[in-house]
């Protein structure tokens, strides 16, 4: 039975907005041109491919549902025939909420160890008393319940990893070949070229869109994913944490949290920033004074303080009204949304200030004056003359802010005012890993995994942001 969490709904709304904007941009050359330029930059498309992988995982993780409870074990069947019949008519659902991604990774989720284990380990990280077959107890590193459990001889581990890795690589390459073939065929059909012709153009880098870069990045990502998938089936490739949960699974689950923070915050703050910023600049006078007062006041309160206060308030509310929340996931989700809103409240002032300045300038532009002399109403003038001419600023800010917000989540969770502790997030991973760093030998993999995943996303987003800014900033465009 599908469940739609509030953030899920907002994500779908965001996608709808993005699609609508895409359609709008496609019909307006001043927006299409820069995006085309982004599409022609090798760095841009490479970053886009990486981001598409993240977004894909994030979206899979946003389709939530109550899983069907499996019918009773066959042993009970004979005794309770009636029960079984009702089961068939009205299937029962668990109260648990899981996502499509969870279902997909159920192997990873369910193969829980006792406690820490290193990446690719086949033994626990801590010594335990192990009962030997002969009944004696020795202290040693016990074998993992799942990680590498298929190996009879621990010495075979490296060879096994190598073979599985190679196998995954081959699978990945096959998948890549399939995707590439489809892509080239589509392009050839679209351009009315022969397949070979199209392929050779791509490989010689003669296409306007750098398809070669796209394909190489794609190859890298696909091979990595398939190798990881192949190995993750038998090992904990990034180790396990204190309660034995797979770190790779946690990292994948954290992607959604990061993306939600990075995008929903923007969605939340955008209307306020755009409307107030333009109003302040366009109308000036009293309106400007009030809005300026508002944002100078807001931006002089330390953001962390505001966030801490808001989150604490929410926590108090949630403990007092525990009955309103059907599941832990829902609670965590509400907290995530709240974090987005409060981050939005603290971060809209920058964009608002930028837009105010730009509108102030545009208001004096001759074409706005001409519109006024033609009796155009203020609302129309704003919609027709001001908004389209500040859209590039909005776009640049949104893309630039994204990575900052992803990083902000990590920092906030680290000081315990971020997302719910039960929710997977890179911030929480880092937070829980920080104590383990003091252990000897060190437990480094949680931190490293969070770092690598976050770093890849933020790097890709930053590279994309640079390309987007270059494409949209009229000053830079003039220079190139």
């Amino acid at each position, binding site marked *: 039975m599908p469940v739609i969490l509030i953030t899920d709904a907002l994500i779908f709304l965001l996608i709808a907005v993005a699609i609508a904007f895409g359609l709008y941009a496609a019909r307006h050359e001043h927006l299409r041109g820069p995006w085309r330029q982004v599409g022609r930059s090798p760095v841009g498309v490479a970053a886009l491919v990486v981001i598409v992988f993240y977004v894909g995982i994030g979206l899979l993780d946003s389709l939530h549902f109550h899983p069907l409870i499996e019918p009773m074990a066959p042993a009970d069947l004979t005794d309770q025939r009636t029960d079984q019949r009702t089961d068939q008519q009205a299937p029962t659902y668990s109260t648990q909420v899981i996502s499509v991604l969870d279902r997909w990774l159920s192997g990873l989720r369910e193969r829980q160890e006792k406690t820490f284990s290193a990446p690719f380990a086949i033994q626990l990280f801590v010594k335990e008393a192990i009962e030997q077959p002969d009944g004696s107890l020795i202290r040693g590193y016990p074998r993992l319940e799942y990680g590498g459990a298929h190996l009879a001889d621990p010495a075979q581990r490296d060879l096994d990893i190598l073979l599985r890795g190679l196998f995954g690589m081959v699978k990945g390459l096959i998948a890549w070949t399939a995707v590439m073939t489809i892509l080239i065929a589509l392009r050839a059909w679209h351009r009315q070229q022969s397949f070979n012709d199209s392929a050779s153009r791509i490989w010689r880098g003669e296409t306007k869109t750098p398809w070669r870069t796209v394909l190489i990045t794609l190859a890298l990502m696909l091979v990595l994913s398939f190798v990881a998938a192949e190995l993750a089936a038998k090992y904990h490739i990034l180790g396990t944490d204190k309660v034995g949960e797979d770190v790779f699974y946690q990292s994948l689950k954290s992607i959604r949290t990061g993306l939600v923070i990075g995008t929903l915050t923007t969605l939340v703050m955008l209307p306020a920033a755009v409307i107030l910023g333009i109003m302040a600049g366009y109308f000036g006078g009293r309106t400007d004074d009030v809005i300026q007062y508002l944002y100078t006041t807001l931006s002089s309160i330390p953001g962390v303080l505001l966030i801490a206060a808001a989150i604490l308030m929410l926590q108090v509310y949630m403990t007092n009204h525990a009955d309103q929340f059907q599941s832990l996931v829902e609670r965590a989700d509400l907290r995530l949304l709240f974090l987005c809103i409060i981050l939005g409240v603290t971060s809209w002032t920058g964009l608002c200030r930028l837009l105010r300045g730009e509108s102030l300038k545009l208001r004096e532009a*001759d*074409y706005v*004056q*001409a519109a006024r002399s*033609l009796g*155009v109403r203020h609302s*129309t003038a704003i919609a027709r003359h001001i908004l389209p001419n500040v859209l590039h600023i909005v776009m640049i800010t949104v893309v630039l802010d994204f990575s900052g917000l992803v990083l902000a989540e990590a920092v906030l969770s680290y000081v315990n005012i971020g997302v719910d502790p039960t929710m997977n997030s890179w911030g929480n991973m880092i937070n829980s890993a920080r104590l383990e760093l003091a252990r000897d030998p060190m437990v480094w993999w949680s931190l490293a995994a969070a770092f690598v995943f976050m770093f890849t996303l933020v790097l890709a987003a930053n590279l994309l942001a640079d390309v987007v800014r270059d494409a949209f900033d009229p000053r830079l465009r003039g220079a190139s």
Partner: protein
Amino acid sequence: MSDVLLHVSNLTAELGNGERPLRVCDGIDFSIRRGETLALLGESGCGKSMTALTLMRLLPLSGRIVGGSVQLDDSELLSLPEREMRGVRGGRMAMIFQEPQTSLNPVLKVGDQIAEAVRLHKPASNAQGASPPLLKRRLFSGEAEVAERVVELLRAVGIPDPARRAGEFPHQLSGGMKQRVMIAMALAGDPELLIADEPTTALDVTIQAQVLQLLKGLQAQTGMAVLLITHDLGVVAETADRLAVMYAGQIVEQASVDAFFAAPAHPYSRKLMESVPSASKRRGELAVIPGRVPPLDQPFTGCRFADRCSQVMPACREAPIAWFQPNLEQSVRCLLWAEGPARLQRASAAVGVVESSASSLRLETATAPRSATGLESEAEALDAARLDAASALSRSAAAPEGHALLATDGLEVHFPIQRGLFRSTVGHLKAVDGVDLRLQAGQTLALVGESGCGKTTVGKAILRLEPPTGGTVRYNGVDLAAIRAGQMRRYRKDLQIIFQDPFASMNPRMLVGDIVGEGLQSLGLEKGRAARRRRVAMLLEQVGIGEQAMERYPHEFSGGQRQRICIARALAVDPKLIVCDEPTSALDVSVQAQILNLLKRLQDELGLSYLFITHDISVVAYLAHEVAVMYLGRIVEQGTAAEVLDAPRHPYTQALLSAVPMMDKAERRQIIRLEGDMPSPAAPPTGCHFHPRCPQAIADCALAYPQPVQLSKTQSARCLRIEV
């Protein structure tokens, strides 16, 4: 040492790589003698500035010099290593740029900026003596000596109180002063050649006169040569010895100034001269050059002007055109001269029929030295024009008094000056301070004055784009300044405005069709979309753009075309009065001619009235029926065009008119040099605003603002020294 200082031959430079580089200068040949001023003349986009930058080897990153040679004295500049070239730049060869605002570093004192130039260049040129340069440098860079030299330079460029000014920052100086500082910096290295790239284009005429005079004086003192780049024929006529006309990356004509203005040889030069508006051309249309400068990214075979030339022959397109010499002082790249002057005379006689009488007169006297008859007949034409204006005047005077379409009385626009944390108002900037204007239906009133005197603000206040703070604006008897903002919508239809900058006056994100139709839509004049489109198409046709422009964006059009679209937008609502705020000052003269012709035609056809805001006196002479001269927020003199332009009575008007550079020597007046700049409207001088600069000021002038003196039925001026 030869007489020739700089010899440029076959200089070719390209911009941008890729398949189609822009050949910004292509086979440039010229030479400059010591102490001479060579003017490089041409419209925008012809490659004038690029030629200058190529000489300095300062091309932008994407540019490169393809071939040719530049010889300064005996050294070949193009083969000099970059290190030595740096010494030449600012040393033997200095350059000043068009925009004084952007050429100075805003965070350094001007004295320090000049001192830097002094330190860099002085030792090197001193070191030509026997002593080793290092020693010299140390000797010279005694700070006191540098400071002394800075003050000396500032004094040389005519900056009063130089010691104090040296300690100021660029933003504390006016535009004219900044340009002087730039010149001082250029002089620091005692250059043999000064390249001045449109040095006065950004300045007002009175300031322009100061700067040009300064350059001339310096040249006489130091004997340096000047390469003056400009698009203003008047400036060329007044300051240069010789000139070279540039077109599409090539020089097409070279001549001594006298020979050129007597008889320009190239069809392009001729058209250029005919398209300059003046009083004598009032009756007819101005000559226009059809089409536009061809893009420079293509290979040319024949004459580059062929597509726009009215005398084009098949041979013109076949091979590159060689130089011909109509006479000793002139050479030209045009096939009309291939067989000597005879052919030209025939050709020009044929064209003369369609060209205006004044210009064909010029052509016929082309080969002979300028004859007395030519002068006389020109004077006659001028007189005729004046008579014409006078009769127009009598017609308008005959119209019943008080029937002005638009009348402002005591119009004021004061901007509050706010300071401090709580933005308390500490004073008022009196941009417009009591302006009375009368505009009759179907006439043109020109509002002239220097930059910042409040002309634009008057225009905006009339349309309530800037709310007036006092006075009345009566349009057909209704006081627009007093009605509520909502009621103003009713009058929007009748009053329209055209702006100066055709690149800023259209929303770059809108289609031309929507831009022109905006007023129709917002005022609900044409409700249906189809009807609106039909009307827009008609309007675009009317201004000579064509309806296919509707589906295109503004950036696809040239400046002149954009200005036409703006005119169409204003016309769309069927206005009675259009405020034209310097509609042609951003355009080249040949394009300006097209716009002026269009405005004039529309006035004749539709009976429009124009409030024409400008600082260009030649445009006023051509177009206006009446003139009002503005200084620091007030009208100092007004009257009919003939009265004000021919017999100005107010000292400011006299100075303004005398400063306008004229092509025709006969029309030149003794320049009345004004000291200093226009004061700030935030703190106007007491009494007559003009008294600190007025050459005729007396003690009483500082006491009270003079009342208007009625000089004739139509002319009045506000000056104490005028007796009726």
